[in-house]
C-alpha cells in the first residue's frame, strides 16, 4: 500500500488549517509542490514542510501521523480518495465533505463531519460536540454520508441534520438531534438530556432508554421492518453495522410536538 505520508515534526503552538490537503486537491501535484504549500500559522504564512516530514506516493491516499489535535479542517470539501490519521485530530474534520473516506485511529474534536454531504468518516475513539451538525450560521447539518464513532460523542450530535447516518457505539451527551430535519442517528450507549428537542423529522434510534420529556409523545410498539432494510444497506458500507437491529418490534416516541412532531425516537430494547 502506497500512501503519501505526513508526519508531524513538532508540537504545534497555533492551530493550523489542513483543508488544502485532500487526495483530490493534490492528485496531480509533485511532492516538491506539496511540500511548498502555504498554510497560516499564527500571523504568518509558512510552508507545510515546516511542520510535516513528507514522503511516499499518493496512490492509496494520505496518511497523517502524530498528535494533530491542533490541525483543523482535515478532509475539507474532499470529493474522493482516502485519508487515514494515526493520532487525534482537531475541529471540522471532513467539513462539507462530498465523497471518499476518512479514518481516524484516535479521537476528533468538535464539528466532525459538519455539513457532510457524502462519504464516510470513521473515528475509532471519541469525538467532541456538534458531530454531523451544521457549521455555524448555516441552515443545514450533514445532508448525506455516514459517520461512525466507536467511542463517545459530546453535545448536540446531529444538530440541524438533514440526511445521512450517524452511528455512535458509546455514549452521547445532551441535545442529540436538536433541530433535526431528517436523517438517522443511532446511539448504542447512554444519552444526556433533551434528546430530539425541536426536531421536525428524522429518526433517533436508542438502545435502552426511558423517555419522559414533555415534548415527546409515546406512540406504542410496532414492527419497523425498515430497520432491517437500512441495516442491509449499512452492512455494505461497514461491518460495524452487522446485527445492529436484532429486533424490529420496538417502541416509538414522536416529537418534538411543539414543532412538526414528525421526528421519531425508536427504542430497541
Amino acid at each position, binding site marked *: 500500500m502506497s500512501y503519501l505520508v505526513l508526519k508531524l515534526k513538532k508540537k504545534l503552538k497555533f492551530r493550523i488549517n489542513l483543508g488544502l490537503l485532500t487526495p483530490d486537491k493534490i492528485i496531480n501535484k509533485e511532492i516538491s509542490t506539496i511540500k511548498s504549500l502555504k498554510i497560516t500559522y499564527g500571523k504568518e504564512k509558512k510552508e507545510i514542510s515546516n511542520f510535516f516530514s513528507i514522503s511516499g506516493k499518493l496512490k492509496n491516499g494520505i496518511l497523517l501521523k502524530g498528535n494533530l489535535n491542533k490541525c483543523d479542517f482535515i478532509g475539507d470539501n474532499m470529493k474522493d480518495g482516502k485519508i487515514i490519521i494515526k493520532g487525534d485530530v482537531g475541529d471540522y474534520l471532513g467539513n462539507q465533505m462530498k465523497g471518499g473516506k476518512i479514518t481516524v485511529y484516535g479521537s476528533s474534536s468538535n464539528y466532525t463531519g459538519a455539513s457532510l454531504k457524502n462519504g464516510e468518516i470513521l473515528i475509532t475513539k471519541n469525538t467532541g460536540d456538534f458531530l454531523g451538525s451544521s457549521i455555524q450560521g448555516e441552515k443545514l447539518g450533514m445532508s*448525506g454520508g455516514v459517520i461512525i464513532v466507536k467511542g463517545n460523542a459530546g453535545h448536540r450530535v446531529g444538530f440541524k441534520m438533514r440526511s*445521512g447516518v450517524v452511528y455512535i457505539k458509546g455514549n452521547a451527551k445532551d441535545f442529540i438531534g436538536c433541530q433535526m430535519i431528517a436523517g438517522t442517528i443511532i446511539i448504542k450507549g447512554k444519552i444526556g438530556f433533551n434528546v430530539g428537542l425541536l426536531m421536525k423529522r428524522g429518526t433517533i434510534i436508542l438502545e435502552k432508554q426511558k423517555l419522559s420529556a414533555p415534548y415527546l409523545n409515546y406512540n406504542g410498539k410496532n*414492527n419497523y421492518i*425498515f430497520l432491517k432494510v*437500512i441495516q*442491509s444497506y449499512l452492512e455494505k458500507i461497514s461491518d460495524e453495522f452487522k446485527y445492529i437491529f436484532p429486533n424490529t418490534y420496538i417502541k416509538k416516541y414522536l416529537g418534538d410536538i411543539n414543532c412538526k412532531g*414528525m421526528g421519531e425516537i425508536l427504542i430497541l430494547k
Partner: protein
Amino acid sequence: MIINGIKIENTFAEAFPMKVVRLIITADSKYWLKQAANNVTGFATSVIACGCEAGVEKEIKSSKTPDGRSGIAVLLFAMDSKGLAKQVLRRVGQCILTSPTTACFSGLESNEKINLGSAIRFFGDGFQVSKKINDKKIWRIPVMEGEFVIEDKTSITNGIGGGNILIIGNSNGEVLKSAEAAVKEMKKVNNIILPFPGGIVRSGSKVGSKYKSLIASTNDAYCPTLKGITKTKLSKSNESVLEIVIDGINEKDISLAMKKGINIICKKFNKGIKSISAGNYGGKLGPHHFHLRDIMK
C-alpha cells in the same frame, strides 16, 4: 431434425424488444408473499390487452433480500418505458401496497430508472418518511397495519418478449401433459417468465383479423378443428396444439428455457407428441429469431 421420434420443425420463434423491470417482494410469510406476487402479476398475459406481461421469476432466500425476509422476484414487461412505469405504479399500488406485511424493492441495476416508491409515497398523505443511505433510498408509508416499505426508484432494462414453442400432438391429454412438464422445467431458468395461465396458452394468435378493430386473431393454421377449410400446418392426425410463450431479459436464457422445454418433451412424451414448432410472422415483426434447430444442436 428428429429427436427421439419427435420432429423439430425447421422454423423459428420471432420475438420483439420490450422493457422489463424486476421487483422483489418480501413478506412475513410465504402465504402473503404468494398472494402479493400472484396479484401483481395477475391479468398480465399479453400486452395485446393487459398493458404488460408479467410473471413470477423465482423465489429468493431471506439472506438475499434487503429486509432479511423471504422474497419473490417478479418480472414485468411492457412495450416501452412509459407504459411500464404506468403498469408498475398501478400494480404495486393496488396489489403490493394492499397486501399485509409486504415490502417492495428494485431487483435490477441499470442507468434507466422509473418511479416506484417516489410515486406511491403520496398515499402517505404527508406522513410518509424517506430514508436515504448513500445511493439507496426507501419510503416508509404509514398504513393501517403499520408501515409499507418500498424503494424509491427501480431500474429497468431492455428485455425480449414473445419467445415461444408450439407443441403439436395427437391428443389433448398428451399435449397438455407434455406442456405442463415443459413449463415445470422451463421455470427453473432465471431471467425469464412464462406469462400465460400456468405458463401455457391454447389460443395462439396471428397478426390481424378479418375484423378491422382486432389486431390479433386465432392462429387458424394451427386450429385442429379448421383443418378442412384453412391453410393448415397440421397433419390429419394432429388433434391438439399448445403454445408456451417466454419473455426474458436476454436471448441466452430464453434459448435455454426453450431447449429445456423441448428436451423434456422429447425425452418423456415421444409417443403422444408428433412435432415441435414455433410461431413467427415471417421475420418482419421482431428482430429476435430463435431457430429451433439451432437451439437444439
